[in-house]
């Protein structure tokens, strides 16, 4: 569904991605793991057109999206839940969800808002509250709900568990599994390697701008290098 081929990207003189290849098959959950500064977020930003690759190609459903503008990529069917959630602070929860459906003109927007409220009842309770007043976990739920409002074919999640309490993290990962089960393809960037590998079908390990390991998540989970570097040396 999504194919990244030999992509080189960076900021000014810093090359954050040194020719990476990555594939996200339709219907799967793919996890991209790695340490801070490995290039995970840059990969996400390149897919969304926020960073323009200097080399290589990104295709989505066979269409070259490498040089497309961000809002056109969203229209093509990819939504990003950005790092740090990026909630519209001075808009209500409801308005935030409405803005998620900005590209849509159909009549089912309200039904979809109800679906988000059903998935995250806390957002329903706080629908009139300003986005900026929510707690971190609630903001993450809102960010995911907002991204789903665009009805993406591919959902990108950048560090959805960052800064959240363990219980909330579990809830977020449950929701990601549900979203996937409902037919949306998911590409997940995580530092919470254990959880990310547990729910994923495939995984890629990124180290200083290069993919050093890839394969079915189950295999990656038992790879001695990954166990040592990311999982504290023992298998669950």
């Amino acid at each position: 569904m999504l194919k990244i081929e030999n992509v080189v990207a960076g900021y000014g003189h810093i090359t954050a991605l040194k020719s990476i290849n990555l594939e996200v098959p339709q219907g799967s959950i793919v996890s991209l793991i790695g340490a801070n500064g490995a290039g995970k977020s840059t990969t996400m930003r390149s897919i969304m057109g926020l960073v323009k690759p200097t080399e290589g190609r990104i295709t989505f459903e066979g269409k070259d999206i490498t040089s497309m503008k961000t809002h056109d990529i969203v229209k093509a069917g990819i939504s990003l839940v950005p790092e740090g959630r990026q909630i519209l602070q001075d808009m209500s929860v409801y308005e935030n969800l409405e803005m998620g459906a900005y590209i849509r003109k159909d009549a089912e927007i309200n039904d979809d808002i109800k679906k988000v409220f059903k998935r995250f009842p806390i957002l329903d309770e706080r629908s009139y509250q300003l986005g900026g007043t929510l707690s971190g976990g609630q903001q993450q739920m809102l960010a995911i709900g907002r991204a789903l409002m665009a009805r993406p074919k591919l959902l990108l999640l950048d560090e959805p568990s960052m800064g959240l309490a363990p219980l909330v993290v579990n809830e977020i990962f449950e929701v990601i599994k549900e979203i996937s089960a409902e037919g949306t393809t998911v590409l997940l960037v995580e530092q919470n390697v254990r959880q990310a590998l547990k729910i994923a079908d495939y995984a890629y390990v990124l180290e200083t701008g290069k993919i050093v390991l890839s394969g079915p998540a189950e295999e990656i989970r038992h790879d001695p290098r990954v166990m040592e570097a990311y999982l504290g040396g023992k298998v669950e």
Partner: protein
Amino acid sequence: MFLQQLVNGLTLGSLYAVLAIGLTLVFGVLNIINMAHGGIFMIGAFVGLFMVTVFEVNIFVAILVAMVVGAILGYLLEFVALRPLRKKNVSHLAPLISTIGVSIFIESVALLVWGPQTRSFPPDFIGGLIDFGMFKISMVQIIGLGVSIVLMLILNVLIKKTKIGKAIRAVSLSTETASLLGINPTLVISVTVMLASALGSAAGVLVGLSFDAVEPMMGVVIGFKGLAVLILGGLGNITGAMVGGFILGVSEVFSVAYGASSYRDAVAFGLIILLLFWRPQGLFGSKDKGGRP
């Protein structure tokens, strides 16, 4: 006396408010101060004047035409002077300088075409005074106040309720987040500058009418007042621009009325300095974002 001055002050303030809203809208989406706003304000005044004197239309049609011309100028301003500078590796001060350039250009062209003399609206163009006993209000004031308030109400609904208004707010908050929602920031910025310029133009007609004076340099001083209101209200904050406009107008009029007519700007700006000592981020700005809403 007091009530009379209050009415005068509110009228003047409403004009400042409309002017400053234009500045604040552009600041919101682009994070720059549009120094060409005063120039567009002046062109608006001339367009309004010529609509009234040459085409002999009524004042409301004249304002509408001035707003359309203002919007077109706003589009050109954005396309020529701002959009090419919205790239990486361009200093964030570059767009500010380029709007100063546009402002000088507009003023020079106006001087060349219309000359430096002050023009006025036809005598008795708009009725006389209405006496309410406690205070008198002229038709010019009623139009000024009325049109400003209607424009502000329309703008409020536009920003709060419509899709494009919400897109403007989203872009104001973060261009990147907006684009991730599928909003085309270039389009939204263009529309915002057009909207702001239309408001500036309308303010031009109303100020020209209120002071009965239209001349090529009229945008310069009032441009600074708009800037003061923008900072007083809190950068990028529409409510702030409205309240700030009224504060400046009322304080100016009162300083003239109570004996300090030659100090009117000094008193008004002095008051703004005091208010900023108390709230450096502006009346409606939040502290952590340096005055941004």
